[in-house]
């Protein structure tokens, strides 16, 4: 049995991290709710297993999403993760194949060269050594990028990189030391024995020409083992915890577990899965338009991991969801932020080292800023019976042209409809939810639900994406909820609305709450292609910008908001469109103040091109008087 004292640090680290990963996984599994446990069991032993393995290979090793978004950063992550994986894999095969016997302890593969310095002189052995050298070179090239990124993040194509804590720095140093120490140790051993391939062989013979290679190799083998051991032992306390956690997360997610608004084990798993890669920082408009660089999701998750107070970070966010769309790990960042807004984790920074490794779930204490229920002033809920209910929303009342256009479209459609908040209605509750006051929002939700139920409507149309999202997700209505773009699309499809074609160039801005928030991308675009020449912008669909007027941010001042607005509008109007079209009254209002281009809602565009006087079959109260819309205005 080949053995040397220097392998002990590596062995301790390796067995520690393996046992720890298993223990932590069991704890997380126990913490899941019962339905989630069943989901995970079914997912693990079921069809999604293969999908999870594929995702682990593509995302955790190859880092496909980062590669797509930013090649240099992706290469850095890939060379370290995939390269290391291959090095271990082929190292194990090498030890098994060329070693003195089969089924070796893990350290044999890692320190193969030390125990078999004569290996790799000729034939197939030399080819294999070349391959191992190539893998090491692959990792080292990524490491060079990582070191450069730490000092100048622009090199890997990032504007900002994450800032680190002390413990993170120690772990980072040990990680950085692993591969150079392996390179030097292998080179010195190879130099002493005259083996090795293009990398270790040539560096080895160079070093051996003026250094006592055989004596010097031993301390470097110690360094290699020590840095590996240190890295493994510190791993659970640092951001490198994402390496084991991500595997578990992928299985859980593919089994169908979602965050929702639960602050349980799945949320904790996601918090630990963040590698602080910094993609969210680059995606954030607060960063590239307003110059605020300390509130991005990576910092939120880091704050939660380190038991810091994250209230300020959690509230200073537009909730546009751009980081969600960009996160390479697929962490549900916006739901996690919403949970942090609703309740704060109360706990002390853990001093006890053992407890740091197994942190207790902190108690979530609801933030109370509103006191007792406060909306007792709401009038009695009364609503006439109708087929289609139109809810304009607060913001639409600030942009009366949208309201008028919608009335015109609804009249033309021939549906029996009722304008629910014609004389001003009650807020939908989403702004309160965004401020973390769910209980208070419930009161408004109950009130509006009653109004909707009493009307007996089958379809609820709203003009405001903010209302649309909350109607769909937090109301339990049993009524079909449509945003007005979806409603208009349906009218066109069913031939209830005939439209002319406008010969103008238009650009479309996807509102956050409608696009990334609710997944409505196609309907607005299809309507616009139907009535005008739609331009492409670099910020279409999932990559769309926030207008800056977002109700999600409580802390942002007027100046920063208008900087974001001006920046966004300058990107959208680059192709000189005659009209900038959006489908959110809040976006319209915000943009109109920042640009000379005409800003209009889809409803206005559509109402402007209704082709012929519609036939009022189903509307007995309206009589045709020449000018069809005379009795509306």
């Amino acid at each position: 049995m080949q053995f040397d004292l220097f392998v002990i640090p590596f062995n301790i680290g390796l067995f520690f991290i393996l046992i720890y990963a298993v223990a932590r996984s069991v704890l997380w599994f126990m913490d899941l709710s019962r339905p989630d446990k069943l989901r995970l069991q079914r997912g693990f032993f079921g069809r999604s297993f293969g999908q999870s393995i594929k995702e682990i290979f593509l995302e955790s090793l190859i880092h496909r999403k980062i590669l797509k978004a930013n090649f240099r950063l992706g290469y850095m992550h890939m060379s370290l993760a995939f390269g290391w994986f291959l090095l271990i894999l082929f190292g194990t095969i090498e030890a098994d194949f060329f070693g003195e016997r089969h089924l070796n302890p893990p350290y044999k593969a890692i320190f193969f060269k030390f125990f078999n310095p004569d290996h790799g002189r000729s034939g197939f052995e030399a080819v294999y050594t070349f391959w191992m050298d190539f893998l090491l070179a692959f990792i080292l090239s990524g490491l060079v990028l990582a070191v450069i990124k730490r000092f100048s993040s622009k090199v890997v194509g990032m504007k900002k990189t994450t800032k680190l804590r002390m413990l993170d720095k120690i772990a980072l140093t040990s990680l950085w030391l692993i591969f150079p120490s392996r390179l030097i140790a292998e080179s010195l051993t190879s130099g002493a024995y005259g083996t090795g391939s293009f990398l270790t062989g040539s560096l080895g013979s160079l070093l051996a020409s003026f250094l006592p290679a055989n004596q010097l190799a031993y301390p470097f083998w110690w360094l290699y083992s020590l840095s590996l051991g240190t890295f493994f032992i510190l791993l659970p306390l640092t951001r490198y915890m994402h390496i084991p956690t991500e595997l578990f997360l992928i299985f859980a997610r593919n089994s169908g577990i979602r965050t929702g608004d639960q602050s349980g084990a799945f949320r904790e798993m996601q918090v630990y899965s963040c590698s602080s890669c910094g993609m969210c920082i680059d995606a954030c408009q607060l960063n590239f338009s307003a110059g605020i660089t300390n509130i991005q999701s990576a910092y939120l998750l880091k704050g939660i991991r380190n038991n810091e107070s994250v209230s300020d970070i959690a509230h200073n966010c537009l909730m546009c969801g751009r980081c969600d769309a960009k996160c390479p790990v697929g962490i549900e960042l916006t739901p996690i932020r919403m949970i942090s807004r609703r309740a704060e984790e109360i706990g002390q920074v853990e001093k006890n080292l053992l407890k740091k490794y197994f942190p207790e779930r902190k108690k979530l204490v609801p933030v109370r800023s509103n006191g007792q229920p406060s909306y007792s002033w709401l009038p009695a809920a009364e609503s006439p019976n109708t087929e289609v209910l139109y809810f304009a929303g607060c913001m639409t009342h600030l942009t009366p042209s949208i309201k008028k256009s919608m009335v015109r479209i609804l009249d033309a459609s021939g549906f029996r409809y009722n304008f629910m908040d014609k004389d001003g209605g009650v807020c939908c509750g989403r702004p309160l939810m965004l401020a973390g006051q769910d209980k208070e929002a419930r009161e408004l939700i109950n009130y509006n639900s009653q109004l909707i139920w009493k009307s007996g409507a089958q379809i609820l149309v709203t003009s405001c994406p903010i209302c649309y999202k909350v109607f769909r997700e937090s109301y339990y209505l049993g009524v079909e909820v449509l945003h007005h773009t979806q409603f208009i699309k349906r009218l066109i499809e069913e031939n209830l609305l005939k439209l002319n074609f406008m010969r103008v160039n238009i650009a479309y801005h996807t509102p956050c709450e409608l696009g990334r928030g609710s997944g409505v991308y196609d309907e607005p675009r299809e309507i616009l292609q139907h009535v005008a020449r739609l331009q492409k912008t670099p910020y279409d669909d999932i990559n769309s910008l926030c207008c800056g007027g977002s109700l999600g941010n409580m802390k942002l001042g007027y100046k920063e908001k208008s900087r974001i607005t001006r920046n966004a509008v300058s990107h959208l109007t680059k192709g000189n469109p005659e009209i900038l079209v959006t489908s959110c009254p809040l976006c319209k209002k915000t943009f109109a103040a920042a640009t000379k281009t005409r800003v209009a809602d889809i409803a206005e565009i559509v109402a402007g091109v209704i082709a012929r006087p519609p036939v009022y079959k189903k509307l007995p109260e309206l009589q045709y008087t020449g000018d069809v819309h005379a009795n509306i205005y």
Partner: protein
Amino acid sequence: MDNFGFTISKGRQIDYENNNRFIAEYIHEREPSFRSCIECGCCSATCTTGNFTRFSLREIQILIKRGENEQVRENIKKCMLCGKCILVCPRGVNTRNVVTLAREAFQKELKNAV
């Protein structure tokens, strides 16, 4: 007493020495834009809540600045945070944050008193 058809009106001076400016200072500190309010009343004109009930953000801002908190305490709970007032404010006051901070301050004041 005989009713002569006229009364002595209540004193209308603002007693800054005795008024409690805790709420105002709490907000000033955390939301500096509160200072730039010119009490034009745009917020009250557009207010969703004000449509249904007697709630005026303009009045509330004035009263908080004077330190006459008692009338504000219950009234401020009526706000639905819908955010229309931010959009119409000509001075760029972050009104939603002002309301939230005021609620927070009342809550803190209550805790301090107990």
